């Protein structure tokens, strides 16, 4: 993955004081974080802590109530006000999203799942095909071009979904609990390709319950609870020597 070195000083994604409520329930309170190019940020925390909502706000699937979202130093959301639709569409080209439930298009072959989005964006079809084959190889899915999603295992489907996101060459990739819908034995193969992307310096934000993975792969770990960022830092700090009582309590359940 190409890393743009000129932008090393500025974050690809910056979120400031983001807030979000569902009705009366505040799910995100005063969330700030920034993601530097080439970094992997893991977000951990109990269910309902707002981790997924944070990713969904960053990818415009949920509408934040207040705060800022900046991509490449430009405002997509400024003090709770969203940029015009055309601008948001341009921001959408900067990120990719991998969902818990894969969300592949069941009526499309693997190849069409991967190739149609870039083709619709006007990219050259031959180049798109070539890139798709390259990505499938990288995902360990050679020979699966013409398969339909239902013919694949969950782990394979998720790897297709990752290839589909990568085919658009995003600057940053979001993972929303990418292995939570998978059998334990299939989890490993998906984590392996994410780890491989980290080695290639792909910028990523990963919401996960896989603690050993988060510890090994991330540059930074964020622990969230009840809509707040409770603690964040280098994985060795957060996992090895957590400062907050709530973090210790949470990590104890994972036998860290």
């Amino acid at each position, binding site marked *: 993955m190409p890393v743009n070195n000129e932008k090393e000083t500025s974050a690809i994604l910056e979120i400031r004081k983001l807030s979000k409520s569902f009705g009366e329930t505040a799910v995100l309170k005063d969330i700030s974080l920034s993601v530097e190019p080439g970094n992997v940020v893991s977000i951990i925390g109990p269910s309902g802590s707002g981790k997924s909502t944070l990713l969904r706000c960053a990818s415009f699937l949920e509408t934040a109530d207040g705060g800022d979202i900046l991509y490449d130093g430009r405002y997509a959301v400024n003090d709770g006000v969203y940029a015009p639709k055309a601008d948001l569409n341009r921001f959408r080209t900067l990120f990719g*999203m991998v*969902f818990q*439930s894969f*969300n592949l*298009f069941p009526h499309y072959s693997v190849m069409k799942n991967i190739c149609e*989005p870039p083709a*619709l*964006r006007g990219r050259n079809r031959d180049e798109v095909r070539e890139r798709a084959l390259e990505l499938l190889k990288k995902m360990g899915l050679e020979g699966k071009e013409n398969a339909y*999603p239902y013919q694949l295992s969950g782990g394979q489907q998720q790897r297709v979904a990752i290839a589909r996101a990568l085919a658009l060459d995003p600057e940053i990739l979001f993972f929303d609990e990418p292995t939570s819908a998978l059998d334990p034995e299939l989890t490993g193969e998906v984590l392996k390709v994410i780890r491989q992307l980290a080695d290639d310096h792909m910028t990523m934000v990963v919401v996960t319950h896989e603690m050993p993975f988060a510890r090994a792969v991330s540059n930074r770990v964020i622990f969230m609870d009840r809509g707040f960022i409770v603690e964040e830092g280098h994985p060795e700090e957060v996992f090895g020597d957590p400062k907050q009582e709530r973090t210790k309590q949470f990590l104890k359940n994972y036998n860290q």
Partner: protein
Amino acid sequence: MSLMTMILKMSEGLGKTCAIFFLTLLFSLPLGMIVALLRMSKNRVVSWITRFFITILRGTPLMLQLLAVTYGPYYLFGAGVSRNKLIPVVIAFSINYAAYFAEIYRGGIESIPVGQYEAAEVLGYTRFQTFMRIILPQVVKRIMPSVTNEVVTLVKDTSMAFTVSYQEMFTIGKQIANSQTSFMPFIVAGVFYYLFNLIVDRLMGRIEKRLNYYK
């Protein structure tokens, strides 16, 4: 009157039966989609008005609707009853079937997981592209059994055109039955509808099979 003459005479109306059938499908299938989309509109007023019309079309007899469309203009405005009854018959059938198709479409559209829309949005599909490329093809597959049901019913419902004396197969049969005091024409009509639906069933089955390339 011999059975053969009966069959021949009734066959003359078969073209009109087919006209009702095909024209109704031609208009009601797309019209149903428009009605379904209006029904699901975020604008409450639009949604409620559409809902109201659907309840009327589904809650009153098709026969009554046929009479209303055919003779309503005469009673309301003193307009002449059109000589070609095919027009009011097809209008009544199309509107009625559109209401049923609309509810089938709505059920199909609402059964598609939200994740499909979300994935499409993040991947840069426009709302129109999402509907046409991602949602609609999956909806068509899911609703095929229900649509087949409606189409089979439509074949038989064409007989209702006799209420406005449109000379389709069943109307002719009924006239023969009256003049000959014979039940035979009704049996002939039954066989006609049965064979018609046998073909419909085969065709729809073939379409369903073609859509079975994915799950």
